[in-house]
């Protein structure tokens, strides 16, 4: 087992290095090549200390100086909440949909979540109105409100709203994928054999079909993560949520090398860690 773990860690590290190289090449090509900027990725001048940790741009509402740590925490919270809830809801409801396949429950769930997922414009606008217009008479999340004592419910509230806007498309997709996988496993010849042997349908589903599909189900665990991270960028920008996605857009606007590279590395690291954990979990499930 230790050999397998070390092997996966080594592969994960290689992937991470490859991704970092791709990011650096892209930034160089885009900022120095396409935009004709004066600096290169390797120039020390491109990494002036004032660029680190603070936003160097201001939009309609000048964002307060936010440290890198605060941005990291804010965005990681949203990603963890969205990925966790997508995994839990889609996993459990997907299993339920496959179990009740004769009533076409998968389609019913798909329509429900699909409708919620297909209306990002409405989500953005209605959540924005509900949260900022009614409460603060301000668009987006008002920056000057700070919780000085007690639990920071404001931060959790903002993160929850972003999570809600992110999570429905992810659930719709993942639920469908889980249910389809189990349905296709349930249609295999060995299941018909156990059925003919007199096994109860429920026992057969939970003991055989679900158990045998475990490695493939685990393979779906991190499938929505690229979508969640990619969607976080425009959402944070529109909601004025002071996280990594907002900093990425600000940095790209300002051709800010450290901001662009750090935000991309944050995303790459999250993906690499998720892939590593998934592979370790999958390896353990396959072995058992």
């Amino acid at each position, binding site marked *: 087992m230790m050999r397998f773990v070390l092997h996966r860690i080594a592969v994960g590290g290689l992937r991470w290095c490859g991704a970092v190289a791709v990011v650096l090449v892209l930034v160089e090509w885009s900022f120095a090549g396409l935009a004709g900027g004066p600096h290169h990725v390797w120039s020390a001048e491109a990494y002036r200390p004032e660029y680190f940790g603070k936003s160097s741009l201001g939009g309609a509402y000048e964002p307060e100086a936010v440290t890198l740590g605060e941005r990291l925490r804010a965005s990681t919270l949203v990603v963890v909440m969205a990925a966790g809830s997508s995994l839990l809801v889609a996993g459990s409801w997907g299993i339920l949909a496959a179990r009740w396949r004769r009533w076409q429950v998968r389609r019913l769930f798909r329509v429900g979540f699909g409708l919620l997922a297909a209306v990002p414009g409405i989500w953005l606008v209605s959540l924005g109105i509900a949260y900022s217009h009614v409460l603060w008479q301000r668009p987006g999340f008002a920056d000057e409100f700070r919780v000085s004592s007690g639990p920071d419910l404001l931060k959790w509230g903002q993160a929850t709203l972003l999570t809600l806007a992110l999570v429905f498309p992810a659930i719709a997709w993942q639920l469908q994928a889980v249910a389809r996988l189990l349905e296709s496993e349930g249609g295999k010849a060995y299941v018909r054999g156990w059925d003919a042997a007199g096994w109860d349908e429920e026992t057969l589903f939970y003991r055989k079909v679900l158990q045998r599909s475990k490695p493939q189900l685990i393979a779906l665990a991190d499938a929505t993560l690229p979508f969640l991270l990619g*969607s976080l*960028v425009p959402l944070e*920008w529109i909601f004025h949520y002071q996280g990594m996605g907002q900093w990425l857009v600000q940095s790209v606007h300002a051709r800010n090398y450290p901001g662009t590279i750090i935000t991309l590395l944050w995303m790459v690291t999250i993906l690499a860690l998720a892939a590593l954990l998934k592979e370790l979990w999958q390896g353990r499930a396959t072995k058992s």
Partner: protein
Amino acid sequence: MSYNRRNSLIFRFGLAVFATVWPLRWLLLLSIPYGLLLLWLFQPGTVTDLSPSRLLEVTEDPVWKAPDENHWFGTTSHGSDLFELSRMAIGTSVAWGITTASLGLAAALFFAVILAMLDGGQKASWVAMVERGWRGWRLIPAMAVLIVVGGSGGNLGVTLLTVAALVALALTPVLREWIHEKATEEQFLMGLAVGLTPFQFLYNRVLPDLGARLLGVLAGLIPALTLAEMALASTGLSGDRPSAGVLIAAGTRFLSEAPWLAVGPGALATAVVVVLSALGGVVQSRVAKDRLGGAGLPRIL
């Protein structure tokens, strides 16, 4: 009177056309709502200067109006009808989605055919390696769009080509698999044995079967890419061209003073994307049900 007379050329031609068209009746029927929607979106409007920087600038004394019976979505600070503006902006986003999807799909098909011809029906190890690498790192190219678009200052050509290249990268392995399904190694060798060139084999046997599947893929890609364009435009990186994303993002700045600036374009964009997604879903399920080879459309859709 002879009952043995051969049917006329016109009758035979009509019969052949009917026999070809009949299996595609559902797709043809579906092309009507598609056509109507696109016709409505692309028809010229009354707003002539569509530069977002001019349309969305707020003067000291804005003349915007709340929605009424003449202006369903209200007007902008310059008095332009927001419904008309939203329709044209969404038309631009949809046109972008259609162009990118078509370009990406064409490039994917081209590369898949080249790969299939190079490895002669058996997947080469380097193809498998590239596919594994691609599956592992889907996010980097997605973020690459943002960097490349930002670097090019929202240049339309660069944006189109970058996204089309990503679509091609994602779809090439899938199309390669489909070509594999239709052309196993034995079939390919038999084709060569009876004197067909690899190109003739692909052209006559594989591509006709792939046609319907590609239609399903295109129908699924269009709403997804339209949405992607809106998201990209909402970050202000799409240059000075109208887009639903630009209108929504600009409207959210004035939620207190003029909430209709965001609500109208948001609602219309949502409706158009929902209709395109629903139509895409129906096209895909018809392609699968009519046994046109549509089963197993790629998971990314």
